[in-house]
């Protein structure tokens, strides 16, 4: 699980172009949206694509994303439970 969390942090920083943010700056329970990392709605769509591309998870209802993408902890837990690859 720790390796997955590290992987998710690296993906978010690299793919969502977070400047001046390091893996160590993101706590596992930090909010990813709003006052946390400040991700926006386009970032949320990128995360949905990432779930499909990297882990074979298709979110049929984008509203599910609100709970899944709350933090690195919630993302890792959801991926661990639902991953197809």
């Amino acid at each position, binding site marked *: 699980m720790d390796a997955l969390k590290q992987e998710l942090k690296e993906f978010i920083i690299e793919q*969502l*172009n*977070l*400047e001046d943010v390091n893996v160590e700056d993101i706590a596992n329970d930090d909010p990813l949206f709003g006052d946390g990392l*400040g991700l926006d709605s*386009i*970032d949320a*769509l*990128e995360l949905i*694509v990432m779930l*499909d*591309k990297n882990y074979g998870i298709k979110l049929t209802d984008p509203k599910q994303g609100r709970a899944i993408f709350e933090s690195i902890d919630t993302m890792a837990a959801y991926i661990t439970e639902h991953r197809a690859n």
Partner: protein
Amino acid sequence: MSQSYKIKSYCHIKAHEVSLNGKVIYANDSNTFSEFIKAAYKSEKTKYPKFFKMDNLSKLAFLAADVLLKNENFDPEVEQNIALVFSNKSSSLDTDRKHQETIQDPSNYYPSPAVFVYTLPNICIGEVSIKYKLNSENSFFIFDSLNARHLKIYSDILLSNKKADEVLCGWVDFEDDSHYEAFLYLVSLEGNTDHNEHEINKLYNI
């Protein structure tokens, strides 16, 4: 008698140099456009994390507009009635190509939303408008080269019809790392340079 307008200030970005009113204010010898524009942006000390999420065309337009508007001491927190009239040759082709790469292989079909949103050239106008709170008139034209006559006529109409207090207009084109250019100028009632086709071309070709 029709009102005569002036070019108040202008900004040029090309060949890894940023100049304001004809004077080079930043230059570096980066290998790539990405490295250059990031370093140039940081030299301006503008704090706007969304800059790093923009495509190349928007980064180019944003930086040129930011250099120019900051020099005019516009407060980005106060809404301004500055129309934006941009033009270029390559439209959003650079980003269009990147988007195509993500959808070309049916077995690996993962279009990136963050890329797709920039597959229109006028999105760069939106980026400038968001930063500077401009709910103003805007247009984006595609020409083979800078069309000073068209931009002059269009800007004059906006100003004379009171659609805008000033017009930020010009050329913002990104083809690839070696072929990019931004030339933006501010048309106003104030300034030392007459707003006419000859002067626009003269400043553009400096």
